[in-house]
């Protein structure tokens, strides 16, 4: 079983209320929030303020690897068994563009998928509370904190209009 993370969990119905609460929590020394939502939302993203995900780096590296692999595969294999047909070059680049292109897409896509797993796993969510309504119509804000700060956090969440707050610290 994952280790339980102590903290306070608030549940919001209103997007603006949730954003206000997140901003205030961030500015009052709670950087490590977990915000649950049923769909991605730009207002929430702005309030959370994380930098753009580095997924694109994975896509780029995967894509470039694919292009290189596609052309080298076709060129090397053609030269390994050189069969001259119609006086055309053994390593015929235009014909190999398709292989290079398809492998660019294939490896680019596979590394993008891998990026979701690798990057999401960097922040462990184990032990953090969750509620099924967060995949429905509520926004969840979990604030990890010790018993000493729990009361303040609870009060902050309620003041911003959290409809349900549970304390486990």
């Amino acid at each position, binding site marked *: 079983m994952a280790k339980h993370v102590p903290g306070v969990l608030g549940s919001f119905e209103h997007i603006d209320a949730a954003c206000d609460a997140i901003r205030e929590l961030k500015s009052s020394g709670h950087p490590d929030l977990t915000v649950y939502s*049923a769909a991605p939302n730009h207002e929430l993203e702005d309030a959370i303020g994380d930098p753009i995900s580095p*997924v694109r780096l994975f*896509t780029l590296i995967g894509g470039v690897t694919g292009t290189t692999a596609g052309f080298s595969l076709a060129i090397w294999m053609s030269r390994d068994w050189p069969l001259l047909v119609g006086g055309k070059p053994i390593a015929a680049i235009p014909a190999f563009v398709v292989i290079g292109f398809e492998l660019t897409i294939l490896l680019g896509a596979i590394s993008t998928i891998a990026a979701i797993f690798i990057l999401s796993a960097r922040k462990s*969510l184990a032990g953090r509370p969750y509620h099924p309504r967060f*995949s429905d119509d509520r926004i969840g804000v979990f604030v990890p904190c010790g018993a000493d700060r729990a009361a303040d956090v609870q009060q902050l969440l309620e003041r911003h209009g959290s409809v349900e707050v549970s304390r486990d610290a």
Partner: protein
Amino acid sequence: MAGDTEMAVIAHDPSMPTQTHAEVTRDVVRTITEAPTRGYYILVGTMAFLTAVLLGTVTLLLKHGLGLAGYAPPIMWSVYITTFVFWVGIGHAGTLISAILFLFRSPWRTAVYRATEAMTVFAVMTAALFPIIHIGRQWIFYWLIPYPNARYLWPNFKSPLLWDVFAISTYLTVSSTFLMVGLVPDIAAVRDHVSGWRKKLYGALSLGWTGADSQWRHYTRAYLYLAALAAPLVLSVHSVVSWDFAVSIVPGWHGTIFAPYFVAGAIYSGIGMTFTLLIPLRKMLRVEHMITDYHFDNLSKLTLFTGTILFYAYAMEYFVAWYSGSTYEQTAFWRRAFGPNWWAGWAMIICNAFVSQLLWFKKIRTNLTALFVISIFINIGMWFERYVIVVSSLANDYLPNAWGQINPTWADWLVLLGSFGWFGLWFTLFYKNFPIVAIQEIKEMIPMPRKKTHGGGH
């Protein structure tokens, strides 16, 4: 008040879902948890039977060889290659709607994209069977893959057929991962609203998804890049399929117009199949309020657009044949229209070029019965298009003494029929067990309730 005006605009926007977030979850989860009807079991049973027909016929082909399917010189590509191109084409509409329209930010794609994306994956799975059935010695199909082997041989990278191996396998991989990535948050929503064995099943399939900000942050970017990769991929796949023909020097195949002509035809046929599947499906699953006339109207416009490109391509093919001054090219096209297979040539022109022109009328675009009937014509027309291209050119190339006639047998027709069973079986099992309307993306379109009444935000 600014907020009221904003709401009024939203109320008039037909792309906007009319439900709340909770209603979306409820309505989509219902399609899964509701007990299947008798009709559903009959449908699954029929599809399973047709799949068995496919497997049985393929077993006979393995045992007796392709002579059973009427393969004889000069027509060594016939119904199986026709059906291969047909099914690959069907897939294209799904990726167009899910990836290309995603990049264009077309709001109407959201309600229909999941169903079409699933259609894509299953259509490509069906298509991929056909080259393997067609090669004759099916048990060594893996020779197509470049791997170090005891024969010290590599496949020929200058052959469009090998390009096709790469294109189709990439397409199958990327479109199925794209479908699965889109499904994860929706499966998590289903997991949270079911109980018992379903909770366990969807719990495992949701891969620990909770909708936390740390997950969305990478997910949304990754989805964007996947769409950006899938968009050129879909255009490349049918271009490569067209080069299977166009790179040869066979009259009727050797045309530079082939790649765009095939891509437009593919999208046209795919939307045709989308109509055939979605019109009854939305009624069966009672999601008419989510997939509305508005969506069909937009899909129809896309059909009209691609159908008109086909019209142009058909006209241009005949024009170029005449203008080329090449006897062989002219003969090939003369025989398409007036040769022994004239009926197939005219079926393709009427069903594709002319029937699609009916969609200029809004009355037809919003009449689902009419659209369903048109979609059947599209399916038939597009199969015949490939039949005409594949068969008629091979039947009559340069030497009249080597001309031949196509002679499809029961083995051809049973495999074609069985392929519909194989595709249909996957699709029917999918729509009853997975969210057929994208929960998460529909919710993304619905503005979340606000505490303060004024507008603002995004």
